[in-house]
C-alpha cells in the first residue's frame, strides 16, 4: 500500500447465479479474431468443479495472455516486440451445464519475469462464480515447455502435485488445432493452486 493512498478500495462481491445475460459476449471466447491472429492456434478447455467434484454450471472464466511473440497489448509492455492487430489477448467464457469452458486462442510466447527471469508461456485466469465472494486467479502453463523448469512462478511451488494443477495437458486436435485441457478444482482433492497478487 502506498503511504499516500487515500480511498478505500471497493470490495468484490459474488457475481451470483444470474450474470449470463449481463455479461454475455460469446464472441469473446475466440481470441483469434476468427483465426486471423498470428501464431499457433489452440483450443483451451477444461471443467470447473467444486469440493464434491460437481461441475459448476455458473462460472465466468476470463483469460489474459501475450500474443505469439510474447507481447501484451498494453501500454505498460515496453518490449520491442510486434503487436498483432488481430490479437488482443483477452477472453471470456461461461461454463456450460457440465462445467466446461472453451477458448480458441494462440499459444502465447514467453514474456519477461522479474529481474532477468524469463517466464514460460502461460495464460492468466480469473474465475468468478456464484459462491465465490472474491474471484480467483490462477495460471495455465503448457506441458512439455522447456521453460517450465526455470519459470519463477512454477518453480516457486515445491510440491509437484500442486505444480501439476497449473499445467494444461495436450488432448489431441480439434479442427486442426491442438487442444489443451486445463481443469479447475475449487476445493479438495486436486485443488488448483490459486494466486494472490
Amino acid at each position: 500500500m502506498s503511504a499516500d493512498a487515500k480511498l478505500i478500495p471497493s470490495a468484490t462481491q459474488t457475481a451470483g447465479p444470474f450474470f449470463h445475460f449481463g455479461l454475455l459476449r460469446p464472441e469473446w471466447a475466440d481470441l483469434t479474431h476468427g483465426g486471423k491472429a498470428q501464431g499457433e492456434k489452440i483450443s483451451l478447455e477444461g471443467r470447473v468443479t467444486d469440493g464434491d467434484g460437481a461441475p459448476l454450471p455458473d462460472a465466468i472464466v476470463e483469460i489474459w495472455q501475450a500474443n505469439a511473440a510474447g507481447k501484451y497489448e498494453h501500454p505498460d509492455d515496453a518490449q520491442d516486440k510486434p503487436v498483432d492487430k488481430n490479437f488482443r489477448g483477452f477472453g471470456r467464457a461461461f461454463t456450460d451445464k457440465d462445467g466446461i469452458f472453451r477458448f480458441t486462442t494462440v499459444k502465447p510466447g514467453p514474456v519477461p519475469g522479474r529481474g532477468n527471469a524469463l517466464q514460460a508461456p502461460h495464460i492468466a485466469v480469473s474465475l468468478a462464480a456464484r459462491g465465490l465472494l472474491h474471484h480467483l486467479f490462477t495460471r495455465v502453463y503448457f506441458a512439455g515447455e522447456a521453460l517450465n523448469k526455470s519459470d519463477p512462478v512454477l518453480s516457486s511451488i515445491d510440491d509437484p502435485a500442486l505444480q501439476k494443477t497449473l499445467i494444461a495437458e495436450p488432448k489431441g486436435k480439434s479442427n486442426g488445432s491442438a487442444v489443451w485441457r486445463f481443469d479447475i478444482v475449487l476445493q479438495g482433492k486436486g485443488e488448483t493452486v490459486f494466486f494472490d497478487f
Partner: protein
Amino acid sequence: MAEIKEYNRERPGGQPANDWPAYASTVKRHPTRPPVALKQTLTEITGPTFADGWTGPEMLDLTKQHKGEPIGERMILAGRVLDEDGKPVPNTLVEIWQANSAGRYIHPNDTHPAPLDPNFTGRGHVVSNDKGEYRFLSLIPGAYPWRNTYNAWRSKHVHFSVFGPAFATRIITQMYFPGDPLLEFDPIYNSVPDEAARQRLIAAYDPNLSEAEWALGYRWDIVLRGRHATPAGI
C-alpha cells in the same frame, strides 16, 4: 529486463474471504489452501484496454431497450472509476446487470413468482470517459427472495463488473442502496469484514443528480487498487 510498477495488494479486512459459511453457496466452492503470493509480473500489471471502442456501442439507457417503458422508479446511476489515490481510471469497461423493479431477473433460472417486465432487460455497459466517469439510466431494482436460509431476501443491488488498467485490478462487485433494511441481514454484503469497506459498496442519494419530474439520482464511485510509487524488480 522488465521494470514492474506494481499495484497495491488488497488491504486486510477490505475484501471478503471466500470461506464464508453464512453464504451457503461458498461451502463447497471455497479453496481450502491459502492462495500463493505471487510477485506481480508483466502479466499481472497489464490487462485488456478499451479505449478504441472494440466492445461495441454503449448501453447507457436501460429504460429504452424495448418497445415500451419499463415499470419502476427511474434512476440515474452515475459515478467515477478511481484508484486508491483518487486518480480517475479512464477508458475502462463498466458492465452492469440487475433485477427489474419487482426483483425479478430476466435470467431463465430466476423463476420466483414476481413478474417479468417485457420492457426491461437490466443490462448496461459503458467505457469510462477521460475523467473516469460513467452514467446509466435505469430503474431501482427490487429486493428478491433467495434460498440461502428460510425466508432470506437479498438487499436491492446492481451488479458491476469493472476492469481497470490491469488484470490485477479487475473486480466484480455489487452496489447497494442507502437505508435498505435488508443490508443488516444480507450475508453477501456482510462478508466484507471492514465496516468502512462495506460502506463503500453503498451508493449515495444525490439530489443534484436527480432530475426534476423525471428520475432519482444515485452516485457511486468504484475504487480500484492503486499503484506503488516506485518500481520494483529492476
